[in-house]
C-alpha cells in the first residue's frame, strides 16, 4: 500500500484545503435549472472568433514574413493585422474578462488571478467561489445536506453572448476563460480557464514511484508523489478524489488500484473498478473513467489519463489531474446543462479542466518535454475535432472558439527561444526551440480549416488576450516593501520562512503585495487592521508608484517596473473600489517572483528564474499586446480587447450598451 509523503509546508496545504475542499463537495447539490433554448434569429452575417491565448503579434508577424503562416497571411491581407491592446494587468482571466464584458476590470471585477480577503489578508481565487449548503443534518459520522451548495462566478458585467441573446442572436462560446461556472444564458457555452479538476484544484496530478521524489504542491494545483513498493511485480495504491461532503471532517475519497508488471517485458496491466488495461512503457492510456463514492447512491465521475513512464528498474506511473466528466458533470460546465453531455456523446471523453496541459508535471520533471507535448497534442486534437463539428453546425450568429496550446507551450518552452534565459539549455534548445513556431503553425492549420469551412457571409476574427515575453527574473515585491519600511514583521521573525503574512505586524504595515501584479495599501476602514488613513491614501499610493517605477536591476541596469498603474486612475466602473491600489506593469523579461504573490519574503530582491515556466505575460500591457487579425478592415489604429467586443456587437447591428466602454473596431 502506498505511503503518501507528508507535505512539510502544512500552512500552505491547510490554506489550500480551506480554500478548495468545498468545491468538489458541491458535486451533487442541485445546480441552477437547465436552459435548453437559445437565440434563434437567422443573421445575414456570421462571425467566427478564434481565441488563441497568448498569440504574440511580433512572433506572428515574423512567422508570417517567413511564410510559415499562410492562412494568417491570407486573412490579414483581406482585412487587418494589428497589435491588440491588452488589459491592466495582461493576465488571461483579466484580459478575457475585458473582452467578455467590453469593459476594463472596474466593470467586471477581475483584477488578477488572485485577489485578497481584506479581513484576513489571505489570497483568494478571483474567478469563482464555492459556498457550501447552509443547512444539514448530522447522523453520527454522516452529514445529510438539506440545501444545495453553490458555485459563483465572480466576474461581473454582462457577457457579450448575453447581450446577443437579448437581441435574439444565437452564439456558441467554447471554453472562453473567465466563465466558470458559466453565467446563466440560453446560448451554448462551455466553461474554460478557471474550471477546476474534480478535487476543486486547478489541476492536481498524482505520481506513483518507488524512487525518491519531491514535488511542489502549488497554489491551487501541482501534484502529489505517492511512495509505492513493487512487491512480486505488483504495485497497489490509491487515486485520491474529491473530499466527501457527506462525512464529518470531509475526508478525501479514493479509488484503490493495482498495477501488475510483467517480470520481463516493459509493460503493465492497471486495474481498478471495472477498468483494466495494458500500458507499455512510455505509453498514454487515453481517457479512463473513474468514479468516487461518497455514500450509497452518491458518486461522482471523473476522467484521467495514465502514463507509464517507467516499469523498471524504477516504477513511475503518472496519473493526470482528474477532469470533470462532461458526460455526467459533477459541477456545472456548460449552458445549457446538456451541451456538455451532447459533446461527450459525440466525441467521447475530453479535457474539461480549465488549463488542460499539465505544466506542473513538466515543471516538476514528472513529465519531460516530449511527454508534456504529447499530452498537449491530445488537447489540440480534441479542440480541432470539436471545432470542426461546431463549424458544420454554424448557421447563424456568432461562434467563439478558444485554444490554450499557444499559451501553455509558450509558458513552458520560451527558455529555448531566449539564449539569455537563466534556464536556457543549448542541448535541449536544439530539440525544442522549434516547438513554439510549430505551435503557431498548428494554429495556422486551424485557421485554414475554418477558412475552408465557412461561407462568404462569415467574418473571421483571430485574437489573443496578450502577447508573450521571457520571464528571466522574478521580483520579490513583499521583500522590497519590507526593505523600504512599508511592511513590518513581528520581532524575531525570519523573513525567508514567512508565508501567507503569518508574521506580519499589521499595526505598522502600510502596504502588502498579493497576487501576480497587485499591491494593496493597509487602508483603514477597508483592511481589518488598516493603518493608512484615507486622507493619506493618495499621496502614499503615488509615492509608492513613483518609487517602484524608479527601481533598477543592478545586474542589467534596466527598470524592473515599467509602469506602476494606480487602480483608481486606470479603471472605470462600479467595481473600482475593489481594485488593487497599484498594479505593477513589469518591464520586459521581469515578473513577480514565485513566492511573493502568496505573502512570502524571500531573501533576494530579484531572483533568477531557473524554472521551466519561462515565458510569461505580466508585463505592462504596452510590452506585450495581443494580436488581432480580421477578415474585415479594422478602422481603429490602436484597438483594445474591449473594442473588439463593441465591434462584434456592431457587426450584428446592436446598439452598444452604455456599460460597454469599447469603441467598435469595424
Amino acid at each position, binding site marked *: 500500500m502506498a505511503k503518501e509523503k507528508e507535505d512539510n509546508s502544512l500552512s500552505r496545504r491547510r490554506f489550500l484545503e480551506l480554500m478548495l475542499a468545498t468545491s468538489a463537495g458541491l458535486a451533487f447539490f442541485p445546480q441552477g435549472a437547465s436552459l435548453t433554448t437559445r437565440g434563434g434569429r437567422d443573421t445575414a452575417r456570421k462571425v467566427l472568433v478564434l481565441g488563441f491565448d497568448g498569440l504574440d503579434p511580433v512572433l506572428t508577424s515574423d512567422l508570417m514574413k517567413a511564410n510559415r503562416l499562410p492562412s494568417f497571411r491570407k486573412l490579414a491581407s483581406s482585412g487587418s493585422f494589428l497589435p491588440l491592446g491588452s488589459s491592466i494587468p495582461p493576465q488571461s482571466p483579466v484580459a478575457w474578462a475585458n473582452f467578455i464584458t467590453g469593459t476594463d476590470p472596474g466593470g467586471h471585477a477581475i483584477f488578477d488571478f488572485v485577489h485578497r480577503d481584506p479581513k484576513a489578508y489571505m489570497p483568494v481565487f478571483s474567478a469563482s467561489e464555492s459556498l457550501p449548503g447552509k443547512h444539514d443534518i448530522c447522523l453520527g459520522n454522516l452529514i445529510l445536506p438539506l440545501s444545495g451548495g453553490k458555485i459563483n462566478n465572480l466576474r461581473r458585467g454582462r457577457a457579450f453572448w448575453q447581450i446577443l441573446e437579448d437581441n435574439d442572436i444565437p452564439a456558441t462560446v467554447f471554453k472562453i476563460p473567465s466563465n466558470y461556472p458559466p453565467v446563466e444564458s440560453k446560448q451554448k457555452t462551455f466553461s474554460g480557464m478557471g474550471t477546476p479538476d474534480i478535487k476543486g484544484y486547478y489541476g492536481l496530478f498524482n505520481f506513483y514511484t518507488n524512487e525518491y521524489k519531491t514535488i511542489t504542491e502549488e497554489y491551487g494545483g501541482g501534484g502529489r508523489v505517492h511512495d509505492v513498493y513493487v512487491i512480486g*511485480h505488483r504495485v497497489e495504491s490509491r487515486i485520491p478524489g474529491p473530499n466527501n461532503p457527506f462525512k464529518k471532517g470531509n475526508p478525501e475519497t479514493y479509488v484503490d488500484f493495482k498495477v501488475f508488471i510483467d517480470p520481463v517485458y516493459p509493460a*503493465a496491466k492497471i486495474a481498478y473498478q471495472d477498468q483494466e*488495461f495494458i500500458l507499455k512503457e512510455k505509453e498514454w492510456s487515453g481517457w479512463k473513467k473513474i468514479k468516487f463514492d461518497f455514500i450509497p447512491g452518491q458518486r461522482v465521475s471523473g476522467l484521467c489519463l495514465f502514463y507509464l513512464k517507467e516499469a523498471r528498474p524504477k516504477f513511475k506511473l503518472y496519473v493526470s489531474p482528474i477532469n470533470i466528466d462532461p458526460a455526467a458533470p459533477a459541477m456545472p460546465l456548460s449552458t445549457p446543462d446538456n451541451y456538455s453531455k451532447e459533446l461527450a456523446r459525440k466525441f467521447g471523453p475530453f479535457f474539461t479542466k480549465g488549463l488542460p496541459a499539465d505544466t506542473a508535471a513538466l515543471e516538476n520533471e514528472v513529465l519531460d518535454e516530449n511527454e508534456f507535448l504529447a499530452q498537449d497534442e491530445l488537447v489540440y486534437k480534441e479542440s480541432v475535432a470539436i471545432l470542426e463539428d461546431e463549424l458544420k453546425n454554424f448557421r447563424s450568429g456568432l461562434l467563439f472558439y478558444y485554444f490554450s496550446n499557444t499559451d501553455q507551450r509558450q509558458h513552458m518552452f520560451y527558455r529555448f527561444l531566449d539564449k539569455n534565459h537563466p534556464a536556457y539549455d543549448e542541448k535541449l534548445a536544439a530539440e525544442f526551440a522549434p516547438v513554439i513556431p510549430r505551435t503557431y503553425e498548428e494554429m495556422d492549420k486551424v485557421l485554414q480549416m475554418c477558412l475552408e469551412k465557412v461561407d462568404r457571409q462569415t467574418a473571421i476574427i483571430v485574437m489573443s488576450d496578450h502577447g508573450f515575453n521571457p520571464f528571466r527574473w522574478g521580483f520579490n515585491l513583499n521583500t522590497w516593501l519590507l526593505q523600504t519600511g512599508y511592511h513590518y514583521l513581528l520581532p524575531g521573525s525570519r523573513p525567508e520562512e514567512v508565508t501567507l503574512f503569518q508574521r506580519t505586524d499589521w499595526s505598522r504595515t502600510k502596504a502588502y503585495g498579493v497576487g501576480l501584479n497587485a499591491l494593496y495599501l493597509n487602508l483603514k476602514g477597508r483592511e481589518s487592521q488598516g493603518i493608512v488613513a484615507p486622507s493619506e491614501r493618495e499621496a502614499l499610493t503615488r509615492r509608492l508608484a513613483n518609487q517602484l517605477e524608479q527601481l533598477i536591476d543592478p545586474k542589467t541596469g534596466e527598470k524592473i517596473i515599467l509602469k506602476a498603474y494606480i487602480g483608481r486612475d486606470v479603471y472605470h466602473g462600479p467595481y473600482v473600489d475593489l481594485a488593487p491600489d497599484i498594479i505593477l506593469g513589469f518591464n520586459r523579461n521581469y515578473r513577480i517572483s514565485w513566492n511573493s504573490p502568496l505573502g512570502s519574503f524571500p531573501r533576494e530582491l530579484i531572483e533568477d528564474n531557473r524554472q521551466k515556466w519561462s515565458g510569461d505575460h505580466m508585463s505592462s500591457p504596452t510590452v506585450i499586446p495581443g494580436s488581432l487579425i480580421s477578415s474585415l478592415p479594422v478602422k481603429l489604429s490602436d484597438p483594445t480587447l474591449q473594442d473588439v467586443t463593441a465591434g462584434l456587437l456592431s457587426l450584428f447591428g446592436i446598439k452598444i450598451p452604455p456599460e460597454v466602454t469599447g469603441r467598435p473596431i469595424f
Partner: protein
Amino acid sequence: MWWLNKAVGLVVKVLLLPFTGINPWGGMIFISFLTAVLMLFIYKKTSNQNGIKEVKNLIKGYLLEIRLFQNDFGTFLAGLKKLLSVNVRYLGYNLKPLLVMIVPIFLLLAQMNLWFGYRSPQPGETLLVKVKFNQTVEVGQLHAEVEAPEGVTVDSPPVRIIDENEADWRLRIIDQTGGQLVIRTGSERYAKDMSLSRRQLAKLSAIRVNQNVWKQLLNPGEKPLPGETEIKQIELVYPEARLKFLGLKIHWLVAYFLLSVIAGFSLKGLFKVEI
C-alpha cells in the same frame, strides 16, 4: 454439455437472424415475446390451473374478510392466518412450473448474453485477451504468443500476472473481419473464436472455458477447451453493450425481464392461463 449448448445456440441464432441488421431492440422485443409465450405454455401445462384459480379466489375472499372485519380483532387475525396459509399453497402451485422453466430459461439467458451482452469493438479500439493457466504452469517462465486473426493486431507484449496465473495481451482492431485467435505455448495451440461484426446485433463469445460443467453452462458460445490442457480459460474483454432508450443505457437483462413480464401478463388472457 457442448452439444446441448450448441443446439440451444442454434435455435437462438435462427430466431435472431432476421434481426441482426436492425436495432438490437428488435431482437430483444421478439425474443421477450417468444419467451413469454413459451413460459405461459409451460406454466399452463405444468401447473395446477384449477388449484391456482381456487387459491386466488380464496386470497380475494380472505382479503375481503380482513377488510370487512378489521374492527373485530379475532376474526381479523383468523383471516390473516388463512390468507397466509393460501399464499403458501399458491407458492407451492408455482414451484413445479418454476422448476420446469428454470432449465430452459437458464440456457436461454446464457445464450442471450452472447448476443446482447457485448458489442463488437470498432476499428481503432483495443481490448484485452486474458489467458488463465492451471496452477501447474509457471506463468513467470512461460513463453506464450498470440496469433491474432485478420484485421486484428497484437498491440502489446504479454503481461504475466504470476499471483493469478494469468497472461494478458492487448489487441487492436484494424477492421472488423474477425476470425480465430490462437494462443501458442510451446508446441500447443489453443484457438478462441474472435468474431467481429459490423452488424448491430451479433453473437460474441467472450470466454472459452475448460471442461467444467458449470462454466460451460455460463459460457456456452464455444466448444470447451480439451481436457488436460494447461489453460483454464481464454477471455476476450469485449466492451459491454447497452440498449439505448430515451437517453438511458439499459442492461439487456433488465430490458428482457421487463418486456417478457409485460408480454406474459398481456397474453395470459389470450392463452387462458391462470397465473
